[in-house]
């Protein structure tokens, strides 16, 4: 007889319920382990760094003594860096995403490009550093400048922004696009008036998360020559610069224990900036989210 044997099902049901419970425990444990390490990290940094975190620390330049050292140059450097990376990466990234999703023919070439962009998002950041060194620093003769660093970072976050923007554009329901085309709107009109407004929350969230990554990156900037200790602020795109992670990296490398506390304070400032940026992302997502 075909069909379901009720007796057998009852026998096996206990095993299935047990498996469910075991797996539930396993997943809970995974979450907990992650949270524990995060809590440990925050606790250590807070207890070590809080003593050094004051207005002097934020407004001071590097100094030979831990008590006088500050992260001002790095903080401003990081913000300037974002000011370069954001426009460059957003324009190139969103433009690429629009082209791939709305204009390009869906053929083997676009598929190939697609896969490569996704691969680029996973390339180690130090490789981008080497690319930036060869291309921006030497070939374009930009030298070890803020501009070279910013452009290198733009390349680093570009694939992430492209992928995020593509996802956001793809998630715009096709029926409202059809409504627009059905009234004789051109492709660009439809993109500007229907697709981009609907995709904006997704694009902005992805972009800010990508920028958060850029603000925490160290390796590529070491390669393209960010300064470790800087006693002036950059006054043009072609000035020397430093960023927070570089300063922190530098402090952690020093033998005296007090420098570790200074580094912890630096990490705290970095985390605060990151939290602030993520808060903006969440705010934008909630404020502009459209329901369909």
């Amino acid at each position, binding site marked *: 007889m075909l069909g379901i044997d009720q007796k057998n099902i009852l026998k096996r049901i206990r095993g299935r319920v047990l498996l469910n419970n075991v797996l539930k425990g396993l997943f809970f444990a995974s979450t907990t382990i992650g949270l524990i390490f995060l809590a440990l990290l925050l606790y250590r940094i807070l207890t070590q760094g809080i003593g050094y975190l004051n207005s002097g620390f934020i407004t001071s330049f590097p100094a030979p003594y831990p008590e006088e050292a500050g992260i001002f140059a790095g903080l401003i450097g990081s913000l300037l860096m974002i000011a370069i990376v954001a426009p460059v990466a957003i324009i190139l990234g969103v433009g690429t995403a629009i082209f791939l999703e709305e204009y390009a023919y869906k053929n083997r070439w676009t598929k190939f490009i697609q896969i490569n962009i996704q691969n680029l998002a996973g390339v180690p950041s130090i490789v981008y550093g080497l690319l930036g060194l060869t291309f921006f620093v030497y070939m374009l003769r930009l030298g070890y400048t803020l501009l070279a660093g910013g452009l290198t970072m733009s390349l680093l976050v570009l694939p992430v922004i492209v992928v995020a923007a593509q996802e956001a554009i793809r998630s715009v329901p096709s029926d409202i696009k059809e409504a627009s085309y059905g*009234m004789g709107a051109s492709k660009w009109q439809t993109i500007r008036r229907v697709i981009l*407004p609907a995709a904006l929350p997704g694009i902005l969230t992805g972009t800010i998360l990508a920028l958060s990554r850029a603000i925490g990156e160290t390796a590529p900037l070491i390669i393209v020559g960010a300064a470790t200790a800087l006693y002036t602020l950059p006054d043009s795109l072609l000035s020397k610069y430093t960023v927070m992670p570089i300063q922190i990296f530098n402090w952690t490398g020093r033998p005296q224990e007090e420098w570790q506390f200074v580094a912890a304070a630096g990490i705290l400032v970095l985390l605060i900036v990151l939290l602030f940026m993520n808060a903006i992302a969440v705010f934008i997502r909630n404020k502009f989210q459209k329901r369909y």
Partner: protein
Amino acid sequence: MNTLMKQKKVDNKTSVKTDKKEIKHTKSEAAMDKNVFEVNNLNLWYGNDQALYEINMNVPQNKVTAIIGPSGCGKSTYLKTLNRMVEMVPIVKTSGSIKYNGEDIFSDKHSVEGLRTKVGMVFQKPNPFPKSIYDNIAYGPRIHGVKKKAVLDQIVEKSLRDAAIWDEVKDRLNENAFGLSGGQQQRICIARALAIEPDVILMDEPTSALDPISTLKVEELVQELKKKYSIIIVTHNMQQAARISDKTAFFLNGELIEFAETDKLFSNPSDKRTEDYISGRFG
């Protein structure tokens, strides 16, 4: 003197024109009223699958033309071919010709945007933009370059009145169109299509997602609209076709089986397959 001359010239011209028109009219009278669409030997493929076979069909002006047939018979595909929306699917190929007011719609001379401005569309599922009611209606005029607020206000009110929904929404034009019921949303979509003053309105099963009362309202609206527009409506519902249309086309497996006056098609179909379908033997 000068103006008089001009006046005369104009008179001459118009008289010549009317003469021509009359001649044309008498010529076409034998063939019946004016057609908005003349479709000849239309074939359509999705990739390698043929969806439409040798369609020949003239769609009359200022009439309601219904297209019926079972699911997958090609009726929606056919409808979307008329404003070239079917080309949104990149693998579509067509052969044959479609003339809109005598001009080939596939010709490079005419842009697809221009065609869709004249041939509007209402979709199966209500698809308002996630914008205010006002912005929904003003969308079409705006993309075609209307910027003045006063003009837009007029267009919005007129379109909403023509779509018989003005009284229901006039106090909340700035609210999101998503807050309306499905039936209201569909009439907003009809108003949105009217706002660009098309000649033809294509309707792709516009009431299939609506409740009976909303359906009735849309049907009454269609009767009202045919005074000004030519309407082509795809419907699953044979009673609906019988109620609202002047002519009906029956599609089956990508072929146009029969196209006749609605009364004749339903009371005295000339093809056995049409008879089987409308008497509910399949589909």
